């Protein structure tokens, strides 16, 4: 219910925002060409994102869904099976861009005073565009799956999606920082891009261009025969192609199983070499279990958790890419919060480091428990006290992220040509922020973690994600307020040094609080086997 409310709220904001923007663009002769380009841009972006996403979804639907063996064992022909799966995938695909794309397109309709047919056509045209991306995803996955291990292929597709998201995010952020200066002339960067989106050339052959043209013509009351014909003909062609190759599906699935099996072989570990030393009887006293209750033993266990979690994260590309995407998106967030800083890169670096460390600390620690999925009881039934358990987890998350914080703080500061003292200060700042967010993140994982996730984004439920959003908004507000208040002189005079001691106290206090609260709340997972 809360999810529905949030989605409705976001959609309403997009509708209002796009209506206002399109109205302003219509009224300004300099911006008018960008109104149409924005419709092309929105549909192109949705199509490209869906294309990459649906490749992964197609692999999931055809090769990884738990019911596939059951369906393939049934006396059902492959062709209707593949086409039905494509239909299912279309329903899934629509749920992704529709809440954002539809309000943008409806906003355009309101701004130009389109007739009711336009509003009714928007969902149909959107479905048409997504239909292309789903069919292409299915076609490609039928060819890719017998050649590349599907888990790996899906990981790379997720990576590509993450990079695309990131590119769009950075682009929007940069646009926001630079204001509308690039829109002043069509010869500018965005002007050229807008021209390319809506003009001829290769872009004219992308289905989203046909969809955009259809909607624009419909809003203007012109004939839609050509773009509609292209959409229908293109869709029919793809559908026919999919129907043609669909009988390959059972064979592709068999081959994909063989490849997936091979992909699970890991390189020989050090332990195998040690196996040569095994000889003789082992005394019971030599292997008997010992309790982990004291802090020193807990830190030792933290090392073991670190080694295990590093393997779990590195081998699960979906988790890895999800963390990377969220961390990088957060790192560029300060640019949004401080638009006046477009020319002051050294200050942006400071806030970039703060946001990077905050998000990484929260993200790694909050995933510590859900990362184990339903294997969590191995920890719960071991002779480890709840306090030692929590301490070990905090140590493990810290060990996993701190080297990254160091690397990013040092590199980002060094790359902007600052001296060694500043590098050291930034390193301390990053470490403090990271250390402060690790316990908060861990507590979010204990309270809001979900061991039965399918997509890494589901590791935390809405409550947990809202905590992170709240932290990032609060940080953004602090930065924005700091810059709104002071002039350039006071900005230069700003030094984080006096904040260090209160910050360290805050970190220690929050660590203690979290250890206490989390030890109690660990009982939440007792329903697991």
């Amino acid at each position, binding site marked *: 219910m809360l999810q529905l409310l949030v989605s409705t709220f976001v959609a309403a904001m997009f509708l209002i925002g796009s209506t206002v923007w399109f109205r302003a663009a219509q009224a300004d002769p300099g911006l008018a060409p960008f109104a149409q380009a924005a419709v092309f841009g929105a549909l192109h972006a949705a199509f490209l994102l869906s294309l990459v996403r649906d490749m992964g979804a197609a692999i999931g639907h055809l090769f990884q869904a738990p019911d596939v063996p059951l369906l393939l064992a049934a006396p059902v022909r492959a062709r209707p099976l593949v086409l039905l799966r494509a239909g299912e995938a279309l329903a899934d695909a629509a749920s992704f861009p529709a809440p954002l794309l539809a309000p943008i397109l409806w906003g355009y309709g309101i701004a130009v005073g389109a007739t009711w047919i336009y509003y009714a056509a928007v969902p149909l045209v959107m479905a048409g565009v997504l239909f292309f991306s789903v069919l292409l995803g299915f076609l490609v996955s039928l060819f890719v799956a017998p050649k590349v291990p599907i888990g790996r292929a899906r990981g790379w597709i997720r990576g590509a999606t993450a990079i695309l998201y990131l590119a769009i995010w950075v682009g929007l952020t940069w646009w926001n920082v630079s204001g509308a200066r690039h829109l002043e002339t069509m010869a500018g960067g965005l002007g050229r891009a807008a021209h390319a989106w809506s003009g001829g050339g290769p872009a004219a052959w992308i289905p989203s261009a046909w969809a955009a043209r259809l909607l624009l013509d419909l809003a203007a009351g012109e004939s839609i025969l050509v773009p509609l014909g292209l959409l229908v003909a293109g869709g029919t062609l793809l559908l026919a192609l999919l129907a043609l190759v669909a009988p390959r599906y059972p064979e592709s699935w068999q081959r994909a199983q063989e490849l997936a099996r091979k992909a*699970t*072989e890991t390189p020989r*570990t050090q332990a195998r070499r040690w196996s040569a030393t095994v000889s003789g009887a082992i005394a019971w006293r030599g292997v008997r279990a010992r309790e982990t209750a004291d802090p020193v033993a807990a830190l030792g266990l933290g090392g073991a958790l670190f080694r295990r979690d590093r393997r779990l994260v590195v081998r699960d590309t979906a988790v890895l890419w999800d963390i990377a995407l969220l961390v990088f998106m957060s790192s560029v967030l300060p640019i949004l919060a401080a638009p006046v800083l477009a020319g002051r890169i050294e200050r942006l670096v400071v806030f970039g480091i703060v946001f990077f460390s905050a998000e990484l600390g929260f993200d790694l620690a909050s995933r510590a428990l859900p990362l184990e999925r339903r294997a969590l009881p191995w*920890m719960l039934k071991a002779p480890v006290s709840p306090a030692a358990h929590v301490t070990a987890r905090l140590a493990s998350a810290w060990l996993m992220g701190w080297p990254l914080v160091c690397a990013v703080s040092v590199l980002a500061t060094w790359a902007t040509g600052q001296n060694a003292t500043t590098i050291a200060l930034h390193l301390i700042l990053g470490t403090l922020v990271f250390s402060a967010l690790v316990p908060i993140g861990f507590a979010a994982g204990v309270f809001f973690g979900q061991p039965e996730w399918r997509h890494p984004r589901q590791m935390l439920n809405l409550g947990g994600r809202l905590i992170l959003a709240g932290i990032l908004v609060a940080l953004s507000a602090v930065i924005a307020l700091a810059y709104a208040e002071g002039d350039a002189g006071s900005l230069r005079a700003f030094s984080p040094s006096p904040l260090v001691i209160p910050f360290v106290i805050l970190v220690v206090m929050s660590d203690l609080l979290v250890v206490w609260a989390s030890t109690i709340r660990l009982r939440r997972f007792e329903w697991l086997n």
Partner: protein
Amino acid sequence: MIRLVGLTKRYGQLTALDDLTLEVPRGTLFGFLGPNGAGKTTTIKLLTGLLKPTAGDAFLGPHSIVTQPLEAKALFGYVADVPFLYDKLTAREFLEFMGALYRVPEEAARARGEKLLKLLELDHAADTLVEAYSHGMRQKTALAGALLHDPPVLILDEPTSGLDPASSRRIKQLLRGLVSRGRTVFFSTQVLEVAEKLCDRVAILDQGKLVAHGTLDELRQSVPGARSLEEAFVTLTRGGEDRVIEEFLEETVEPLDLGALDSIS
């Protein structure tokens, strides 16, 4: 070695386990039987500290799982009926982790881990990710993890389900061997033949209540006319199943001959 005293677990109105009192002596292979939903897994979860009892207590050796959980947990190894493992670890890496979790010295853990992998015929797949394992291989990996610290008590939930006959036989031999060396094995099973052949003592649970316990002979004698454990079990838990089956077959399953099949094709 294991003592359950008035162990009770309630979920709201539902009583999953009702005042269970039971004692399992050291060096015993103890079978815990009962129909689906009888409360076997709840008992095991209470015994291993995964659930907190509503009333009563469970003792492993001298230690209460409620008041001295760490000392009690150090004494047992446990395998769940559906053992969830870390899909992205190999069996060898899993054992390495278990060694650290139970603070077994590294060298000893490796040595015992390698022996367990070989014993359970997992050595050929020890560097393969668990996600590629069959149910039986997962079961054996979990068992290896539970045995790594050579626990005095082994608690197993359906240990032989999903295993091939050879593995099943090997594990049964292993359990008997462990018992003869003073370890105590407490396991739940639905397979009465396994319980009959393997166990020194059994207990039968039905709808959260203990309905019988003792040696196999004591159990058979306690049910008039019962010649086997299966007959005693059916009588003690839910009688009259034969009649239900007959009714179903009579009402819904038409006799089929080969001629009918030919006419379909």
